[in-house]
C-alpha cells in the first residue's frame, strides 16, 4: 500500500518538477522514485493484507505483477531520457501521466472489489488517452488518441453495464461475495448474471485487445508516440492480464461454462486475428500491435487453463514479453531516426551490416517473441502450452501451435530484413550509451530468464 501511495506522490512530484527547466532530471528522478516503489512493494512480500474494507487485497500475486510492471516502467523511463530529449513542452506531465497510469495498474492487480477494478482501469486509461495524443500536432497521434478514447469509453460503458447487472443480481461489488453468489446457482446462471459477467469480461478483454475487441490496438499502437506504444504493449498488457486473472481467480473461478466457452471463442479469434493480421504487415509498430494481440491469445490460453500455476505463468510470460518488446521499440526508434521517420519494417534493412551487435540483440528479442529456444519467449510458450495441454485442451493447443508457426514467419520476416542489404544508407544510426545499455540489459534478461527459467509461486 505504501508503494501505491508513494507512487502517487512521486507522480505529483514529477509533475511539479516540470517547472524546472532542466528536463534531464525527470527521467532519473522518475526511475529512481520507482526503484523506491519497487523496494516498498517488495517489503510486503509474503504477507497478504487487505486494505480499506477489502477494497484491495495486496498479496504475492499483486506484488509480483506490480514489481514486474515497475521494472518495465523503469526501463521505459530510462529510454525516455533519450526519447524526450528534443521535446520541449509537457515532458514532466508525460512522465507524471505514466506514473499515474502505473498507479492505476497497481489497482488493477490488487482489487478485490469491482469498483476498484473500474477505477483502476480508468486511472490507467485516461492517462493513456492523453499519452496517445501526446504529439499534439501530429494527425496520427490525434487520431490514435481519439480512437482509443471513443472505443475505450464505449468499452467502459459496456463494462459498467455488466457491473450493474451483476450488482443487480448479487447486490455486491465485492468479488468473493460475487463468487459465493454465483456458486449457489450450481452452474445454472440466470441470463442476466451471465450477460453481466460477459460484459465485465468484455470490458477487460478490450484492455488486453482480445478479438473481436482488438480493433483499437493496431491503430493506436501505430499512431501513438513510440514510447507510449511501448508502455501500452508492456505495462498495460501486463496490467490487463493481471486484472483479468484476478477477476477470474478471485471472482469467477471455476468459470461458468458459458463464460468459459465464450472465452475460448475469444482466445481462438485472438490467436487467429493477431497472427494473421501481423502476417502481411509492413509497418513495424502495427506488426508489434498484432503480435501483442497474438500474445494475448496465448496468455488467454494460460488464463483459461485455470491451473494453480496459471498466475505464475502469466507473470513470467508478460514479463519476458515486455522485456523483449522494449529493446525492439528502442531499436525501432533508432532505426526510424536513421531513416527520416519512416516506420516500415524495411527501415531495419542493412542493420546487420551497419550495427551488427544491435542487429543481434534485435534478433534475440524477435526470437523470443517468436518463441524459439533458448529465449524466454520459448519458455513462456512452453509453460502456457503445458497448462493448456494439462487441462486437456488439445485441439486449441494445436491451433495455438499452428498460429505460433505463422508468428515465426512474421518475426523472421523482420530478421530477414535485418540481413537484407540496403541500397544506400542515408543517415548513420546513432546509439547512445544508455540506449545500448538498455538494449543489452533487456536482451540478456531475455536470454537469462529463458535459460534459467523461474517461477514465482503466486
Amino acid at each position, binding site marked *: 500500500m505504501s508503494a501505491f501511495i508513494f507512487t502517487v506522490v512521486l507522480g505529483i512530484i514529477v509533475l511539479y518538477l516540470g517547472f524546472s527547466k532542466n528536463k534531464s532530471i525527470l527521467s532519473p528522478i522518475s526511475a529512481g522514485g520507482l526503484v523506491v516503489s519497487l523496494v516498498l512493494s517488495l517489503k510486503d512480500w509474503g504477507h497478504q493484507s487487505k486494505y480499506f474494507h477489502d477494497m484491495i487485497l495486496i498479496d504475492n500475486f499483486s506484488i509480483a505483477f506490480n514489481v514486474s510492471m515497475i521494472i518495465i516502467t523503469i526501463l521505459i523511463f530510462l529510454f525516455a531520457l533519450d526519447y524526450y530529449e528534443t521535446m520541449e513542452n509537457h515532458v514532466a506531465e508525460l512522465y507524471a501521466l505514466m506514473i499515474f497510469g502505473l498507479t492505476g495498474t497497481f489497482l488493477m492487480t490488487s482489487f478485490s472489489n469491482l469498483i476498484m477494478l473500474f477505477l483502476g482501469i480508468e486511472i490507467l486509461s485516461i492517462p493513456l488517452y492523453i499519452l496517445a495524443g501526446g504529439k499534439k500536432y501530429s494527425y496520427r497521434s490525434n487520431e490514435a488518441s481519439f480512437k482509443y478514447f*471513443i472505443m475505450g469509453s464505449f468499452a467502459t460503458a459496456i463494462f459498467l453495464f455488466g457491473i450493474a447487472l451483476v450488482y443487480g443480481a448479487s447486490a455486491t461489488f465485492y468479488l468473493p461475495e460475487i463468487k459465493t453468489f454465483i456458486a449457489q446457482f450450481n452452474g445454472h446462471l440466470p441470463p442476466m448474471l451471465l450477460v453481466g459477467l460477459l460484459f465485465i469480461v468484455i470490458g477487460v478483454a478490450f484492455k488486453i485487445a482480445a478479438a473481436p475487441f482488438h480493433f483499437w490496438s493496431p491503430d493506436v499502437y501505430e499512431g501513438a508516440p513510440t514510447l507510449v506504444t511501448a508502455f501500452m504493449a508492456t505495462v498495460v498488457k501486463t496490467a490487463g492480464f493481471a486484472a483479468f486473472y484476478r477477476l477470474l481467480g478471485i471472482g469467477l473461478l471455476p468459470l461458468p461454462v458459458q463464460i468459459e466457452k465464450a472465452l475460448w471463442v475469444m482466445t481462438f479469434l485472438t490467436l487467429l486475428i493477431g497472427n494473421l493480421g501481423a502476417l502481411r504487415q509492413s509497418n513495424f509498430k502495427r506488426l508489434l500491435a498484432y503480435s501483442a494481440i497474438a500474445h494475448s491469445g496465448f496468455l488467454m490460453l494460460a488464463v483459461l487453463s485455470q491451473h494453480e500455476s496459471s498466475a505464475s505463468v502469466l507473470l513470467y510470460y508478460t514479463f519476458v514479453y515486455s522485456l523483449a518488446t522494449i529493446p525492439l521499440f528502442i531499436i525501432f526508434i533508432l532505426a526510424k531516426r536513421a531513416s527520416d521517420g519512416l516506420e516500415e519494417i524495411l527501415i531495419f534493412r542493412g542493420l546487420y551490416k551497419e550495427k551488427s551487435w544491435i542487429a543481434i540483440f534485435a534478433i534475440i528479442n524477435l526470437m523470443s517473441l517468436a518463441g524459439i529456444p533458448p529465449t524466454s519467449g520459448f519458455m513462456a510458450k512452453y509453460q502456457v502450452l503445458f497448462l493448456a495441454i494439462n487441462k486437456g485442451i488439445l485441439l486449441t493447443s494445436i491451433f495455438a501451435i499452428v498460429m505460433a508457426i505463422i508468428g515465426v514467419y512474421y518475426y523472421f520476416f523482420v530478421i530477414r530484413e535485418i540481413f537484407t542489404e540496403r541500397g544506400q544508407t542515408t543517415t548513420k544510426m546513432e546509439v547512445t550509451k544508455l540506449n545500448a545499455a538498455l538494449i543489452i540489459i533487456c536482451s540478456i534478461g531475455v536470454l537469462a530468464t529463458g535459460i534459467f527459467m523461474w517461477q514465482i509461486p503466486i
Partner: protein
Amino acid sequence: MKDITSAIQIIPLEHYILLCVTLFSIGLLGILFRRNTIIILMSIELMLNSVNLLVAAFSAYHSDPAGQVFVFFIMIVAAAEVAVGLSILVMMKRNVDSVDINLLNRLKW
C-alpha cells in the same frame, strides 16, 4: 414524500431494467448512427447514465448504499472522461478543422 420513497416498491424492477436497456441501446445506436464526434460523445454519456440509473435502481431495491456510491464514481469518471474527450476533440478540430469521425481513417491496415 412517502409516495416517492415507495416508488421502488411499486414499480417493478423489470421496468427499470427495461428503461435502462432502452436508454443504453439508444446510446449505442447514437454511437453507430452519427458521424459527428460530439454527438457520439453525448451518446456515450447517455449510455453511462443509463448504467447509473440501473445501478441506482438496484441499489434502491437492495437498499444497499454501495450502489449509490458506485453511481457517484461513475459520474466522477464520466466527468473526467468528458474533460479528456472534449479536449481531444478540440485538438482534433484544431488539427483537421472538422469533427467528422470518418476523417479519422489514416491509421488502418
